[in-house]
Every structure is written in C-alpha cells, then in structure tokens.
C-alpha cells in the first residue's frame, strides 16, 4: 500500500514540477495554478503514506531510508503550500518544486523501511531533532528561493527590462517579505531542532560529537542565518543584500548536508 502511495506522490510531484517549469517557460500563470493543485494532491498522498509508516508497529521514520527523504519532501511541500496560501506567489513553486522532486528522487533510490539509525538511538528526542531541523531547512529553502527570485527581478528592474519574466515574478516587496518570514520562522525552528540534537548527543554519544564535521558545518550555517536575521531585525538590512546573502548561506547549508557527507567521515553517517 505504502509503495503505491509513494509512487503516486512521486508521479504527481513530477507532474507539478513539469507544470511549474512550463509556467516559467511560457510565462503564463495558469500552468502554475494547476501545478499548485497537483502538488496539493502529491502532498495528500505523502501525508497518508507517512501516516501509515508512523502507525506501523515497526517504528517511526527510519532515518536515511526512503521514508526520511519523502518526509523531507513532505515538509518542504507543506511549508511551501502554507506560504502559497498566504502570499499567492505561485511562481515560487517553479523554484521549490524541483527541490521537492530531487528529494523524492533521493527517496526513490533508497530502500524502504531499512533503519539506518541504531535501535538504541531511537527516541522522541531524535524525532523532535529530525522534524524541527527539516522544517527549519524547508523554511530556509523558501527564504532562499524568494531571494533568488528577488535577484532576478531586481536585475530586470535595474536594467529597465520589461520582459515577460518580470511580469511573471512577484513584486520585490513581496519577495522580500517571504524571505523575511522564512528567516524569522526558520531560525528558531532550526535552533530548537539543533538544541534537541545536542541534548540527545550529550546523553548518547558522550564525546566526540562537537568536532563532527556535519555539526560544525551546520553550526556555521545556523550562525550565518542568525547573523542574517540579526542584520535584518536590528540593522535593517533589506532587499538585494538579504537576497544575495540568503542564497549564499543556503549554498553553505547544502554543503553541510551533502558535501560534508561525501568528503568527511561524520557521526551522522549511520550506514
């Protein structure tokens, strides 16, 4: 049952991404509107899928397995759809949906139900750590995508290019607001997620974890986001500067979660 739901969710994610990209290429809003509803359906299938996994007596989400990545895709899609309802900037989906699809592709390449976390590490703190970190990242992804769109729109307006693309992209002020909200909500959520991880590691791993490359990179990204939020709230940074730095920090975050995994040995590798 779960595999059928996953396949359906995957197919709808693929359709949604294609629709959003079509919207970007044809500079028409209708495909983006349809894609949003397709993504809602994909989100629905993923929700049922994850619910069935959760109620499975074998345990909750298996870290590193298919369910983990589909959970990440579910959180990113959920955060985007919630933002979408509030801001009505459908074209943001053209930037977010490929990320959701990538997560689903990663999930499809994994084995279902295979736990990559030792049994003794399973506990509610791991779950809290996992949920909050993924949710925090999803919000940062959203903030960075808005930043990327801001950079494009800013460039078009600065160079006086009244193109179809400019009409399709949301107003600068709206994009800046999405970036602001993404940071404002993402930072405390990520902080709490990291805190749960630290507490858990303090009890379980005892020593060695503060020097773990993934922890260091994540802390660097967390500090960078903290710095950004501080500059925005206290100093009043806005607009293009925030957009550029958000994108740069997002790349840093990507490195921490993928690059480090392949280049360094990390305690977060449970294989």
């Amino acid at each position, binding site marked *: 049952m779960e595999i059928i739901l996953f396949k359906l969710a995957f197919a709808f994610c693929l359709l949604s991404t294609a629709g959003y990209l079509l919207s970007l290429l044809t500079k028409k809003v209708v495909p983006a509107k349809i894609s949003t509803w397709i993504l809602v359906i994909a989100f629905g299938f993923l929700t049922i899928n994850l619910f069935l996994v959760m109620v499975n007596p074998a345990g909750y989400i298996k870290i590193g397995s298919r369910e983990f990545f589909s959970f990440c895709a579910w959180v990113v899609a959920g955060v985007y759809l919630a933002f979408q309802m509030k801001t009505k900037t459908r074209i943001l989906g053209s930037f977010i949906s490929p990320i959701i699809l990538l997560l689903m592709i990663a999930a499809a390449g994994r084995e279902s139900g295979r736990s990559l976390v030792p049994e003794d590490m399973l506990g509610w703190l791991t779950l809290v750590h996992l949920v909050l970190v993924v949710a925090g990242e999803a919000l940062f992804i959203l903030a960075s995508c808005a930043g990327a769109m801001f950079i494009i*729109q800013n460039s078009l*307006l*600065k160079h*006086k290019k*009244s193109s179809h693309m*400019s*009409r399709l992209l*949301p*107003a*600068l*002020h*709206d994009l*800046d607001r999405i970036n602001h909200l993404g940071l404002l909500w993402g930072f405390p959520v990520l902080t709490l997620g990291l805190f749960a991880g630290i507490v858990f590691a303090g009890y379980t791993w005892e020593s060695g974890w503060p020097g773990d490359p993934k922890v260091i990179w994540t802390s660097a990204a967390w500090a960078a986001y903290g710095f950004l939020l501080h500059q925005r709230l206290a100093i*009043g*940074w*806005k*607009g*293009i*500067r925030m957009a550029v730095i958000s994108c740069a920090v997002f790349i840093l975050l990507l490195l921490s979660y993928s690059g480090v995994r392949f280049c360094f040995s990390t305690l977060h590798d449970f294989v």
Partner: protein
Amino acid sequence: MIALIGLNHKTAPLAVREKLFAGCQEESDLPVRLTAVCGIREAMFLSTCNRIEILTRIDGQEETLYKLRDFLAASGGLTPEEARDCLYLYCDENAVRHLFRVAASLDSLVMGETQILGQVKDAYRRALEKNSTGAVLNRLLHRAFRTAKRVRSETAIAVNPVSVSFAAVTLAKKIFGSLTGKEVLVIGAGEMAELTGMHLVANGISGIIIANRSQAQASVLAEKFHGRAVSLEALGEALTEADIVISSTGASSYIVSADLIRQVHHQRKNRLLFLIDIAVPRDIDPQAGAVENVYLYNIDNLQDIVDENMNARKKEALKAEAIVEEEVKNYINWVKELDAVPTIVLLRNKVEEIVRLELVKAGSWMKDMNETERQKVEILINSIVNKLLHNPVTVLKEESSEFKSADIVALTRQLFRLDE
C-alpha cells in the same frame, strides 16, 4: 441589410467631429427618429470622443443609405463636402467586421484601451431603452461584446500600459506589490507629475508630499491631493518618508543628488525606493539608480517601455484580428441560417413529422377502416396542412435574401420552435 455609417479620428478632423458630436448630443431621441426614417428597421447610435457612428438594419435599397447619410449630416450640420470626405459607410459583412473591431478596441486611437467596450454597451442600452433595436441588431451586438471579451481574454492586447503615467504605476506595483499605505513625494508642480500622482492616488497610496520651489503652488497641489506641502530645503526629510518619488521641475541642475540618496538610505532603513524622473533636463542624478534597493527611471526609460508595449500590442492585434474574423464568420453563418430556404425545409419536416406521429397514434381507432378509407383520411390531413402552410411559406420565399428576411425568418423559427 446591415449598414454602418459614421466618422472617427482617422477620417475626420477634430473640428468636424466636434460639430457632429454637438449636433447629435442635442438629439436625445436620435435612435427613435432614425427608425422613423423610411426603410430603417433597427438603429443604434454610438458617440464617443473619437467616433460617431450609426448602426442600422435597413431595407436593402440604395436610396435608404443616402437617406441615412443625409440624416447624419443634417444632425451635425455638416456641409456636403464634409459629409462626402469624412463619413464612411460599411454594409453587411464589412459593417459587422467594423463593429467587432470597434468593440474589441482595434479601431481605437490607443489600441487596446478598455473604455470603448463600455461606451458601445452604453449605446446599446440606450437603444434598448428606446426600443430601436430588434432581433438582428440584438444578436449582432451580443456577438460584438463576445468578440471583445474573447480578444481581451485570449490576447495580451490590454495587458501592457501605453502611457507614461500608467507605465510608472505598473512599475511601482512591480516593486511594491500593493501601493496601499505607500507614501509619494512629488517634486515640482508640473502637469505630468500631477497626472502620475493622480494615477498613484487612484491606486491607493496613503499619503502625498509636494515639494516645490514655490510654496504657494505646492500648497495648491497638496490641497488637491489631500497631501502636505514642503519646501525644497526639506527634501532630505521628505525623501526619508517617501516610497515613490516623482520629479518634474524645470531646474537646470540635479535637485536630487546621488549623495543625498545615499545619506537618506540609511535613515530609510534600506527600504525600497522608486524614483521617477520625468523632467528634462533631469532632476535626479543618474548615479542615484546605482544605490541598492533604489530604482530610478527617467522619461526615456518610461517612453521605451511604452514604445515596447505599443509594439507588443500591435503583435497582439494580429491575434485579435484573427478572432474578429472568426466571429464575423460565425455571425454571417448565423445570418445565412436565417435564410428562408432552410427554414422552409425545417418547417415542412416538422409538420410532416407531426402528421406521421399523429397517424401512428390514430392507428388504434383507424384499424377498422379499409385501405381506401385510410388513404382518404391521409390525403385530407395533408391537404389541410398544405393549405395552412401555403401562406407562411410564400411569405418566407418572397422575403428570401441574406439580411432582409432575417426578421421574419427568426420569428418563424421561434414561433414553430424549429431550433429545438
């Protein structure tokens, strides 16, 4: 025959348009008087600042067309030369095409403008009130509205602004999204700045500050917009508050320097700032546009956008013309359907079908009759039916021609429910 006579900005100079406009304005019952002219069956009178037209359905005689032209010329006090040189006359398919193009704003001075459709609708409403339209013009007008709607929704003809002030408002929306709650600073009390300010006020800006060398002139404009006036010395402070700045003074040097923008930028907490410089020579240092989160557009930039949009509209107009042609074809097909011959065939088929069904029903009590008696009854029924149909069919045949018979054919189809 459908006939359309009139003049517009392309065929008549302003003086002639004014004369005809004034003459026709005095005649509030023009459609009624038109239908009283011999040979005119239906009429609608359209009058806008750029065109005056009469749409009619007339009996297909050339003489009626002359009467129509003389009527319009006399209403506006036009000389015979003016009437000959300025008035255009379209018949049947060309009249339909012209009306559809007018409603779709393809014949307007500013192609794609949205006002004309409302004006055609108003003209139709007035004609309806005066009961001067009938089946043919009603259908034609509804088709014209449908064509205009299709052009509006299926092409981007009205999407891009084609005036400098509208282009400025559109850009402001691209930067700020909604303009509600935004503050506008107008430097100088020029006409162009006033016009752009008016558009911005109409789009919901919360406040307007007028800065001018002459405080008195600034106060007059500020009062008009319910804003406040400041002197040019207080420009720095006003720039701190403003989100949108429109400048159009006659100053020979820069009023707003790049340094001033940099200075206020920090006080503004890096808020987005849209500078519109419509003055020649320029009021705002071009370097100000390089400051982050500041977007500077001068009159040439805005004019380039307008030109670009105008070209885009011309491209969209090709698509719109195709839609118009399609709708003209549809309408002509409908008119041809109203041709008498298919209607006569439909009428005969319907009656024969009724006779057949009734004979089947009567089968139960006719079963005792022999074959000869049955045939006699059928002959009797057919004879009555043929006699009843004779007059309607004769009248339909007599009236048979493309537009002329439309009225009676439509009525016949309605009376016998032939379209069901």
